[in-house]
């Protein structure tokens, strides 16, 4: 029996501010959040007064009630926070909006992320004081204090167990950078990456180079979710939410390197739910947005979602498979077989904690991407590899 929520809700509007490198944005983060919300409504052709739900994640500083107050929204019926840090909620945030709409808790729900780190503290930089307690006491004194360190350790372990190489990681970075060269909104637009440049770049935390790591940017992105019935009165053709899933596998919250299934991205259980709910398999997906905190985690996400077997993620990236066929090297044997992060993603478009990936998934389904995959009908969004909880979304035309 099909999942009860399959195709029962849809995204009818996307909005985003301009994306700028860390620290350059003069408008407040809160203003950016409101702007993205307004733009999503404008895109949909919905008066903002009709918005009655707001969903956030990663402890977003911009509480939905503040946004509703600032924008004169007369009644907020649903104000929601997805637990967990980083990008683990980028898809789950939309999943929560979906549940609110499907259940009737609210009619038009915004799911958003705003991030202007230049105005606050940098994400991933430790501000740990002279004493740390609890989980951090077993990692921070040894300088294990930034996500890049954890992902470097996981990636190193994957290399040990499966023979994955830095060249495989490079393939993931190249895909994002090549796609960004066709996207004028991307922060790395006009700044192409080559394999040589990648290998020459400095290490941040070995085996991860500078180009394996997400950017730090300022900006905001939002989507508007409602029912297909209500969508009929709006401007855009709805993009259907086929399935959403969120959660975590066993003991993935264990600190100091004690999580089991160490060389994975923690999607195994969530992805199993996702495919079952959508009633499709990995081969039915023509394009995917796979959150890049660090490239090694993208490789593990691809394995977790069953696009290839465990340990085969490295070779899977070869032959231009992750690149749109128009940007892949001439004659690349796998060109365009599974283009990922077609706007440039976290690495090269913007680091809006993955909500920009949801927007790109919607553009692919509308046929308006700057790296449009011909005939794309279904797109996966996999959010926040390696964190707990993670989340997934499948959208379709």
């Amino acid at each position: 029996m099909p999942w009860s929520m399959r195709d029962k809700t849809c995204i009818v509007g996307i909005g985003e501010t301009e994306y700028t490198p860390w620290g350059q944005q003069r408008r407040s983060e809160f203003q950016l959040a409101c702007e993205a919300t307004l733009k999503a409504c404008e895109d949909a052709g919905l008066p903002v007064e009709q918005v009655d739900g707001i969903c956030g994640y990663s402890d977003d500083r911009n509480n939905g009630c503040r946004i509703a107050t600032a924008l004169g929204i007369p009644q907020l019926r649903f104000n929601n926070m997805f637990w967990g840090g980083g990008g683990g909620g980028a898809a789950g945030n939309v999943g929560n909006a979906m549940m609110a709409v499907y259940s009737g808790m609210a009619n038009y729900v915004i799911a958003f992320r705003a991030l202007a780190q230049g105005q606050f503290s940098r994400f991933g930089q430790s501000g740990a004081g002279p004493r740390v307690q609890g989980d951090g006491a077993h990692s921070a004194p040894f300088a294990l204090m930034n996500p890049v360190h954890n992902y470097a350790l996981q990636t190193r372990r994957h290399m040990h167990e499966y023979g994955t190489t830095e060249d495989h990681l490079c393939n993931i970075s190249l895909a994002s950078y090549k796609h960004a060269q066709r996207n004028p909104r991307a922060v790395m637009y006009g700044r192409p990456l080559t394999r040589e440049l990648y290998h020459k770049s400095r290490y941040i935390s070995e085996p991860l180079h500078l180009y394996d790591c997400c950017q730090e940017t300022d900006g905001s992105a939002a989507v508007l979710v409602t029912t297909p019935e209500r969508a009929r009165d709006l401007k855009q053709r709805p993009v259907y939410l086929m399935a959403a899933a969120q959660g975590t596998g066993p003991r993935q919250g264990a600190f100091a390197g004690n999580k089991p299934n160490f060389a994975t991205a923690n999607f195994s259980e969530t992805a199993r739910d996702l495919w079952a709910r959508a009633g499709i398999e990995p081969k039915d997906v023509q394009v995917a947005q796979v959150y890049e905190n660090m490239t090694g985690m993208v490789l593990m996400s691809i394995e977790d979602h069953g696009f290839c077997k465990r340990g085969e993620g490295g070779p899977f990236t070869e032959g231009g498979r992750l690149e749109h066929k128009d940007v892949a090297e001439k004659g690349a044997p796998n060109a365009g077989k599974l283009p990922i992060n077609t706007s440039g993603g976290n690495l090269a478009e913007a680091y809006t904690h993955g909500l920009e990936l949801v927007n790109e998934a919607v553009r692919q389904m509308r046929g308006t991407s700057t790296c449009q995959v011909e005939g794309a009908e279904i797109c996966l969004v996999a959010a926040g590899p390696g964190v707990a909880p993670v989340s997934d979304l499948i959208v379709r035309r």
Partner: protein
Amino acid sequence: MADSYFPKGMPLPQGTVDDQEYWAWTRRHRLMIQRCTKCGTFRHNPIPFCYNCRALEYVWVDQIPPIGVVYSFTIVRAPAHPALVGRPPFNIVLVELPRAGGVRLASNLVDLRGGDGKEPVSQVARWNSPAKVPAFEPDPKSIYVGMPVEVVWEDHEDVTLPLFMPSADPEAVAAAERHPKAAPPKTGRTG
């Protein structure tokens, strides 16, 4: 020579009700890992419940000798804390403890043999001797997954951290030999 692997200003542990006993043991240069009395499952870092059977009863299992095997490692090249500016490169290791069901500790690897004209990074105490000895930054290329290691203690004013050094202890070497070998690199550079 510094007194510690990292410069002053790095965060140090402060025990909570859940883990203050662990830090009291490290202060006495004993590496103790919690083991469930009911089902025998080891766990780290210290927590009240056994995740396998929910029992509250546990014992501290003394790691003698306190040996381990490097499960993974990274060489850090960019500082992530104000106290670390100018300090990289340094290493972070995850050490698997074969005497404690394979639980892992996050730590740092030091080299007590020194040499190569390198500056000592800190003074640490050998686990079986209270004598302070200079610790050197190990050659990053010498660290590998599956490396046998043993504890060295780094004493701070009121807390002691378990660091590790390469080990020739027969039990550590045997555990390292049991550790899964590195898979050969997968090739292919088309892209």
